[in-house]
């Protein structure tokens, strides 16, 4: 009986506390932005940049007086790189009063947190999940992603290679372990053949960790028809593959996507040349867009080191987008903000012109910066936008 009493008292106290905190929020306290992301574990490197980008955006917005006269503050919770922990992380930031939630840069790792946050009626952004499912169809009407959709990334690369480089024959090398790679490679092939290009060779492997690529390198080298190699891989497998391909004396140009962004892996292939990739922006202070160079400088000042990859820009831009929508809505009501977000047409954000519709919460026609690596140095070539994107499937 005593136990029951204390339980009831505890419960009442908790209720009072909850009531008190919600009242406290109604005054001039800052608006809380929650980041339910991987702060530790294997996904953490992908969320680190977007969080720091978000923090920079919050500082910039606060310096200009906040949103609707209210300052912003950021709280975080760790999913520990475990999809199942996403729910708890989302609850944690929601309990701290989060009005908007940012989740992991991937559909699979971010979905649980996003479902929880949207169920609580909050607008939820993934920083850079490229799967079009991250939106109305896969999560719900309050879910958005700042990424350029994977089919659009593939089309951008295919069109650039075909039209600007004049390449005609491709060798496609894919890691089939990750959905993003499968979608990237299959959409690339669709657009490539539409353009009139030819696929002269293909190879697939299925790994998520460091391995040796002798077989792949030899197979690739035997194909003498190809103009270039299109590679669907990331920095945990791609550098090893490139290293072994180059060590085998194969110097054909290699084209890859934003998952190969960053120079932290370049040591693996000293003096790498003839490597091309698309990124959100150059993180080396040489982007043709001075806004992006400013961003890199401010980020470096705030966090003590330059961004590892341009994915951090998606964290910055989702904050820009939410603040803009809130200002236009004149309220922090999630539904009002959603309606304003859905009206976005080529809004000028750091990552580039951004549009949303009530049906599509991912961008398909936004340019990517094409970069080249010669002698181990990144240099920007051009910002390129696809003209036609293969139809998306959810």
């Amino acid at each position, binding site marked *: 009986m005593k136990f029951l009493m204390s339980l009831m008292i505890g419960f009442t106290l908790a209720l009072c506390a909850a009531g008190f905190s919600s009242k406290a929020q109604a005054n001039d306290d800052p608006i809380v932005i929650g980041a339910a992301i991987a702060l530790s574990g294997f996904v953490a490197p992908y969320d680190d940049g977007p969080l720091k980008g978000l923090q920079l955006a919050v500082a910039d917005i606060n310096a200009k007086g906040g949103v609707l006269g209210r300052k912003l503050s950021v709280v975080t919770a760790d999913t520990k790189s475990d999809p199942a922990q996403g729910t708890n992380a989302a609850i944690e930031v929601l309990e701290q009063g989060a009005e908007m939630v940012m989740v992991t840069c991937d559909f699979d790792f971010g979905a649980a947190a996003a479902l929880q946050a949207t169920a609580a009626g909050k607008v939820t952004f993934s920083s850079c999940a490229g799967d079009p499912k991250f939106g109305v169809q896969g999560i719900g009407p309050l879910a958005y992603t700042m990424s350029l959709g994977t089919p659009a990334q593939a089309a951008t690369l295919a069109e650039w290679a075909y039209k600007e480089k004049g390449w005609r024959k491709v060798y496609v090398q894919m890691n089939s372990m990750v959905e993003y790679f499968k979608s990237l490679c299959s959409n690339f092939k669709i657009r490539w053949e539409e353009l009139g290009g030819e696929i002269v060779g293909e190879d697939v492997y*299925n790994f998520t960790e460091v391995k*040796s690529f002798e077989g792949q390198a030899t197979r690739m080298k035997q194909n003498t028809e190809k103009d270039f190699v299109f590679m669907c891989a990331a920095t945990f497998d791609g550098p090893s593959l490139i290293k072994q391909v180059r*060590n085998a*004396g194969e110097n054909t140009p290699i084209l890859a996507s934003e998952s190969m962004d960053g120079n932290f*892996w370049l*040591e*693996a292939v000293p003096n790498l040349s003839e490597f091309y990739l698309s990124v959100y922006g150059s993180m080396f202070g040489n982007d043709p867009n001075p806004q992006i160079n400013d961003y890199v400088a401010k980020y470096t000042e705030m966090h003590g080191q330059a961004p590892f990859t341009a994915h951090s820009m998606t964290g910055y831009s989702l904050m820009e987008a939410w603040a803009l929508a809130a200002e236009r809505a004149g309220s922090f009501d999630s539904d009002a903000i959603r309606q304003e977000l859905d009206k976005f047409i080529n809004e000028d954000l750091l990552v580039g012109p951004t549009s949303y519709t009530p049906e599509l919460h991912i961008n398909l026609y936004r340019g990517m910066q094409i970069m080249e690596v010669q002698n181990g140095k990144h240099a920007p070539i051009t910002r390129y936008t696809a003209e036609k994107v293969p139809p998306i499937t959810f």
Partner: protein
Amino acid sequence: MIFLQYAIDALSVGGLYALAALGIGLIFGIMRLVNFAHGDLLMMGCYAMFMLAAAIWPVTILGGVVIAILVAVITECIAFRPLRSADPTILLAASFAVSFFLQNFVLMIMGGRALGVDIVPALNQHIVWDSLSISVLNLFTIALSVILMGGLSLFLARTRIGIHMRAASEDVRMARMLGVRVNLVVATAFAISGLLAGAAAIVVLGKTGLVLPTMGLRLTLVAFVAVIVGGMGSLTGAVIGGYAVGILEVVLGGLLPLVILPYREALIFTVVLLFLLFRPGGIIRVAALKERV
């Protein structure tokens, strides 16, 4: 010519797998412990080399090998020695614990981002001969594995502690009664497995140029497969198994049509399954492992 190219690839991959399988086979022979943390010794060696990358390359390499040996001996002292007389399944569970610990330790300190490193620039070269292009690293791998295997068999045949080690793997209790110091023998076996892991680390880092906390996982699995195929408890078997898996991997990678290619791993594991079903003792059966009735 293309045959020769694949042969060199296969010998190099097989050599690496044989080194890893030897490390696992050696410990299993003596302790009946399937050391799932073996790949993590390699990972620790790789991270040590990554941190010493600024030094001249002999220091880098030596540092990595020494760290792998040290970690091997320390894990033996702390994790496995107190469990020496425990059931093999408990030892297996302990090795998983060691593996998780080492991976998370590195993850905590170094983070989960794959980091690039180039330890011995000379290994990146390749020799072009007619239509063949042979990477120096492949030749190095083949030579290193042959030297280490030769060295190990000489050590086991000629040195006192090597003979004790063989005695212990035949029958630990009997060996102990005859005056074999089991602690020393087991510690030496772990040191050798650390050395083999360190050597494999040079090859892996030379091939991949990346360090990642999970990088040892695949090599452990492949080595485990090699040990099963070769015959649990037999070192010759482990080497044969290592080469068999390496050759199979390269041949399948070169011959399989594209649609089946992603399932290459599954095919290799099918071979293991067939061995377990039809020849559970592996290619070389070890008498000491048979249940005595």
